């Protein structure tokens, strides 16, 4: 088994238009490493949702991706407002996104549930006023 590859992406919170770039990058990496399309899709969608969350709610953050042939792990770290009630945030349709964000088609309350759906394990640690850390693991089938 080769050494895992580590990729780190800064998610820029200032620029909404750049959200999704890390997802693009990791998609390209996984493709060139020879992962199957299904795995690539799961990872890139979860990454995309995570990026959008960090941009909308937390003013950006850092995404670290650890890639091994049999599993992919993503750790999203931000220093935003934190999530007071994680169970509530995990409910489909629950969102705290402001109207301005909803007006451009985001903030439907599907981000976290979608991420969970595509991962084999997802752990959220959050401290109000300090920030949030989301760990996601994808097993390669």
């Amino acid at each position, binding site marked *: 088994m080769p050494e895992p590859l580590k990729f780190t992406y800064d998610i820029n919170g200032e620029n909404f238009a750049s959200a999704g770039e890390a997802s693009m990058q990791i998609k390209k990496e996984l*493709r*060139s490493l020879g992962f199957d399309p299904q795995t*690539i899709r799961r990872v890139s969608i979860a990454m*995309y949702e995570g990026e959008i969350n960090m941009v909308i709610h937390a003013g950006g953050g850092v995404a670290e991706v650890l890639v091994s042939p049999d599993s992919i792990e993503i750790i999203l770290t931000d220093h935003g407002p934190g999530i007071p009630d994680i169970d509530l945030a995990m409910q489909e349709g629950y969102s705290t996104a402001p109207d301005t964000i909803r007006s451009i*088609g985001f903030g439907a309350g599907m981000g976290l549930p979608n991420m969970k759906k595509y991962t084999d394990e997802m752990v959220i640690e959050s401290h109000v006023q300090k920030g949030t850390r989301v760990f996601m693991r994808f097993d390669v089938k």
Partner: protein
Amino acid sequence: MGNYNHSVLLDIEKCKGCTNCLKRCPTEAIRIRDGHAQINSNRCIDCGECIRICPYKAKKAVSDKIERLQEFKYKIALPAPSLYGQFDNLDDIDYLLQGLLDYGFDEVFEVARAAEIVSGYTRRYLKMPGLAKPVISSACPVVSRLIALRYPFLIDNVMPLKPPVDVAAQLAREGAMKAHPELKSEDIGVCFISPCPAKVSYLKSEKEAGRGNVDCIVSASDIYFAIVNKMERKQVPIPVSKTGMIGVSWAASGGEASALFNDRYLAADGIENVIKVLDNIDNGTLPNLEFVELDACTGGCVGGVMNVANPFIAKARLQSIRRYLPVSQNWDFFNSKDDDMVPDSFFSEGSIEYEPDDSLAGDMNEAFRKRAAIQEIADSLPQLDCGSCGAPTCMAFAEDIVRGEATEEECIVKMRDKIQQLLRGEHNDSK
């Protein structure tokens, strides 16, 4: 698709080995080696960007010579809708069609007419249950090829109907065989007048795969100069055009999509915009849409590199051509047929297969080792993406080194640092 035909070629004599095409290529298919450009055919999507940007005209779009027509007893011209926008003051399409007949074609079958039929069937197709939405147009071969290389999950979204050029060729041949029973199929030469090299590549590959009815593909610019003198417009032409607004509109971006009479569509043109939209569909971040029309060339097919006219002027001309046309001249095609059926003969025979263009190695362990080695080299490079090494970016250069296609010494920035170190070293020695 190792055997996919390409129609963008390089004239080595003219190529100066500059970095214009290198930096422009959307799939990073070009490298400069031994002082001139090389195109990696596994990555090339025939978009023609390198032809547009080359200041030395060293990139060429290849098509058949018009003389090839002489091989056939019965010659049928298939003018692309974009051809209508190439001529000054052309207020009536029939002048152009007459010009093609005067040039020596026995018959003209407008691709615009086939486009109206494809539009009709697309409206029906979109109503079928269980479709992956949005349905992506299959008309631009650059887009289909890009999807095959990079978007495996969008393959099911690509509309499986034949593009208008194939439908035109099929109907033209069938019609000619019926009208002239003395002709054998090989006597008939179906000749598409193409706005772009991607159509040339697509049609040649189809032909090689034993599909398709197009025998010869000539560029719009070649035919332009051959027929512009024939179009004297001294007398009123025989009305042969069977095209309405819909068919003519296919020549420009949005024409295909607007013919669906459904406002849930998106039309994007220009290869960079196309890539952005595909990324959005792939990420599931597009609003609910029924149909997506993507044209690799800016402006749509009028922007093809084999055309003569400026795409925007061509588009403006099309507006005046359209003015007195009915919406479509092909409603009768659908009259006697089942309301929601699309006949099998209008479905593509081939299918798109995923062929990743940038795989590092067949074996994943090997791919991981290579990727780690690439990173190590990339970290030592200047990240200027200057292109002087012959690769479009430092990252691509690092990858080329690991693939064994380049050596680190080719980085002139690193070389300069090395020389300066040496010079300093000598200076110190002399003290």
